[in-house]
């Protein structure tokens, strides 16, 4: 089971290492982790996407709550949140293939942000799933490099994660 956690933490030195240390120490497997400041500059928000059964998620939530600078942990409900991840994908591209790649970009609603004699770089901001689709489409051309930010997520509608 994959789940997404939003974690509000005090914006101070060492918090991220406390949290990432917790994951490895208690052998929780995480798929991605993204962190950034919130509307309140003293508070940062960490989004974690991880895998595990109900027992593991519950343990993870409880252990996170024990970390003193963690203010709030919320498990986002499947289907009731928006998630996005930014990726930059550099693909091998000869002049002959350029048109094909532009077509793929159009089809997927991705942006081409850099073109050189033998490469094309895509910028794609989507769900992790769709990014995977694009990667699969680009694979045959030869992927040179991928950079991803990790997923960030926000509740739909009125719901929110607040301190």
């Amino acid at each position, binding site marked *: 089971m994959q789940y997404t956690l939003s974690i509000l933490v005090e914006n101070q030195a060492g918090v991220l290492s406390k949290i990432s240390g917790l994951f490895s120490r208690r052998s929780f497997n995480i798929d991605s982790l993204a962190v950034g400041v919130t509307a309140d500059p003293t508070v940062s928000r960490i989004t974690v996407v991880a895998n595990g059964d109900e027992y593991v998620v519950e343990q993870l939530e409880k252990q996170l709550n024990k*970390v003193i600078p963690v*203010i709030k942990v919320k498990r986002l409900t499947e289907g009731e949140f928006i998630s996005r991840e930014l990726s930059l994908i550099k693909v091998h591209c000869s002049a002959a293939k350029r048109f094909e790649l532009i077509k793929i970009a159009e089809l997927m609603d991705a942006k081409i942000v850099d073109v050189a004699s033998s490469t094309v770089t895509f910028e794609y901001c989507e769900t992790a799933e769709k990014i995977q689709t694009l990667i699969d489409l680009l694979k045959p051309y030869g992927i040179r490099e991928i950079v991803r930010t990790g997923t960030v997520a926000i509740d739909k509608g009125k719901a929110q994660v607040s301190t």
Partner: protein
Amino acid sequence: MISGAEIIVKCLEAEGVDTVFGYPGATICPFYDSLYDSNIKHVLVRQEQNAAHAASGYARACMKPGVCVATSGPGATNLITGIATAYMDSIPMIAITGQVRSDLLGRDVFQEADITGACEPFTKHSYLVERTADLPRIFKEAFHIATTGRPGPVLIDIPQDLQENMLESFEYPKTVDIKGYKPNTKGHSVQVQRAVELIKKAKRPVIVAGGGVLSSGAKLKLQKFAEITQIPVLSTMMGIGVMPSDHPLYLGMLGTHGRKCANTALHKTDLTIVCGARLGDRAIASPDQMGTRAKVIHIDIDPAEIGKNVKTTVPIVGDMNNVLKQLINDIDGFKINDEWDSEVKELKAHFQSKISTFEGYVEPRTLINKLSFMLKSKAILCADVGQNQIWCANNFRIREGRFLTTGGMGTMGYSVPAAIGAKMARKDRDVVVVCGDGSFQMSLNELSTIAQNNLNIKIIVMRNQRLGMVRELQDKIYNCRHSATILNDKPDFVALAKAYGIDSAEVSSNEEAEKFVKNIVESDKPFVLVCNVHPDTPSIL
């Protein structure tokens, strides 16, 4: 004007600290210099690990946070085992370390160690102080965090220059506000109600009490609850002392090294009421050890413990005092059925243990049992780790006293420094150590601390010339191949104790041992009694 170091001392005074345990070095020197003018007693241990263990013994004996101090680098790293032990045993503790100057941090200068990083997994929280002005707030928070919720060690790492910096004035904050730390102490009334219903329906309920009952000071409430309902009580190792050992409702310690009657009762139960215990693998090796269909009510201040090791029917997060008060109130005089009551009594009678003895040796279990009644009823027994610990856990008869051992971490060498801490906290109590010849040698340098402070601590060394508990394991599982578990007959502990200025004797029979115990408990001087124990004496029957 006031220096950072003076501020630290004032913070400790404001928290009512009267004793600290530590070992100085360059980067903590400003603090030590200020301490020199203070009324706070400093006990100079002989190795930093023991400062933490002593702080642990102190905290447990007087229910106040223990404070230990070390210098940066090796001083701080020496503390780690003691801090980790306190963490696993849930002991409220403040560890203060000196750190290299803040402008040199991260450059691997002389005696720099990233101690907050190293202790991350073993501390409830830690601070690397960045500004002298933050010290009062940090100390206020640290004491609050260490002592509330599930107790634990908090580390404060203070660069030397921040101890030297001068501030205009000092004011200790009156309140704390930590956004992410608001432990819930009152049990949810709906859950308490559900628990009461389960208890009323149960046929064979038992209470499993752990260290949380003691650290929250709820032991009398637990007794009251058990007495009202007549539900039998088992304890974990950390919970020993929640009931007087000879209380009719007390069945003893459960688990791998526990009492048969306790384990049998646990196996038969249909409702386990877990109070302040995490039920680690030594207590319950596999959940089905607990009657397979048994329901579980789990009461703990730490929500993360609930459901971690055993499946829970009714979770109650809260302070043991509050929850037991709610339960006592809501249970409304309910008493369990007579059948279970008499079955439990039978169990208890059935498993009376017979102990075989070896001629020419001290039988440790018999001696420990006798010892219980030769001490004052509020005596504090500090047991080390190994067979000696199991002998004590199962045979020391607690009345109103305490049993201090490290059940969570099992750190050899704990007992002697813990006794130093306990004695500093409770000069009025008998404080006795029981340890093995292996564990004794892990902290016998502290004999020097005992002698220097003339601490009336009696140390009983169970000398089997083996790392007994591991050797026993090798007998059972490794085909009696005694790899690295044989100690030789050196040192001569009696001569060694005397070299430290502490009187000592060696005995090889229970009669002799008892005679000595009778005499030494009367004296106000420390004593080391070396008991020769046959290496084949088992941990349990």
